[in-house]
């Protein structure tokens, strides 16, 4: 009889020693995959148009982004949806070539033809602004463009 009584013991605690390891593994995964946003937006986050025929942008290092939209600080830059942001500043279309050339100097010569310019413009921006940028891009032979759009039905 005493044999059975002996077994009356509490459940042993689950060993959680490996829990930190698991969590650290997840942590490192997210640390590695995280890319911190490099530029602060001086314009309000553009409301991208939606389209169905979108292609994914590959090779992130070869993409330079031009933002077009409404300034966050209208007293300084004026109102309207046609403010162009290059790097960290509100700029004009005339500064686009310098921006592209600067971006080119950071990649190797062989990769220059694969560089893509992504234009992130607000829905309410005007085509005129986009055309100005496009003409400047053509001047410096940056011919690959991607009009940033979110994938959707397109209507």
């Amino acid at each position, binding site marked *: 009889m005493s044999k059975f009584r002996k077994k009356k013991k509490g459940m042993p605690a689950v060993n*959680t*020693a490996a*829990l*930190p390891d698991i*969590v*650290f593994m*997840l*942590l490192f995964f*997210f*640390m590695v*995959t*995280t*890319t*911190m*946003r490099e530029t602060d937006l001086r314009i309000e986050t553009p409301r991208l*148009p939606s*389209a*169905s*025929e*979108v*292609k*994914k*942008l590959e090779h*992130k290092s070869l*993409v330079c982004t031009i933002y*077009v939209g409404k300034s966050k600080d209208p007293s300084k830059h004026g109102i309207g949806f046609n403010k162009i942001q290059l790097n960290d500043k509100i700029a004009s279309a005339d500064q686009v070539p310098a921006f592209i050339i600067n971006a080119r100097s950071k990649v190797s010569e062989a990769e220059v033809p694969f560089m*893509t310019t*992504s*234009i992130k*413009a*607000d*829905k*309410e*921006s*005007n*085509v*005129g602004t*986009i*055309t100005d940028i*496009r003409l400047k*891009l*053509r*001047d410096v*032979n940056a*011919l*690959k*463009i*991607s*009009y*940033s*759009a*979110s*994938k959707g039905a*397109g*209507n």
Partner: protein
Amino acid sequence: MARRENPEINAGSMADIAFLLLIFFLVTTTMNVDSGVSKKLSEKPPADYVPPIIKEKNIFEVNINRNNELLVEGERMDVKDLREAAVKFIDNGGGLGKPGEDGTPGLPCDYCGGERSESSSDHPNKAIISVQSDRGTEYGTYIKVQNELLRAYTVLRNRLCKKRYDISFDELEETYKDNKSNEDLKKKVEDIKTAYPQIISDAEPTS
């Protein structure tokens, strides 16, 4: 005196610390992939460049005015009808195609399913879509129009691909992307692309 054993450091809160960091990175991570309507600009023409003369019937003119209204081939149209009209224009196949680079004469379009009307485009490789917008046009509308035009090409390419290779063009491109060295797939993709080349030109906007 009896030597006491070193007490172990309590690592119970290690998991908490790691969790805290983990949650921070979870929150700041954005995994969005950038996507967009890709376009290739034409090179800057030299100063003495004379544009080639193109027959009126091979141009599909799309005008967008500053109130975001569409004028297609001289008629008002809604964006939702644009794709159908573009398909009809591209796929018309009313005449001979572009002569080959080695001097071979142009062939009639034997895969087109259009009406073969005299007054519309000759051949998909001659059909040019010209988009003229106003400086004041909204960008959203402009992208919508571009998207519809690209969709017209997708519809046609898918149809032809299904007929020739029994697989839709989207799927074919997908398989090719995973398997870039496959010459056979490459040839198929090129074949479809040359059958329906995307010729969309952006005219200088009116102000």
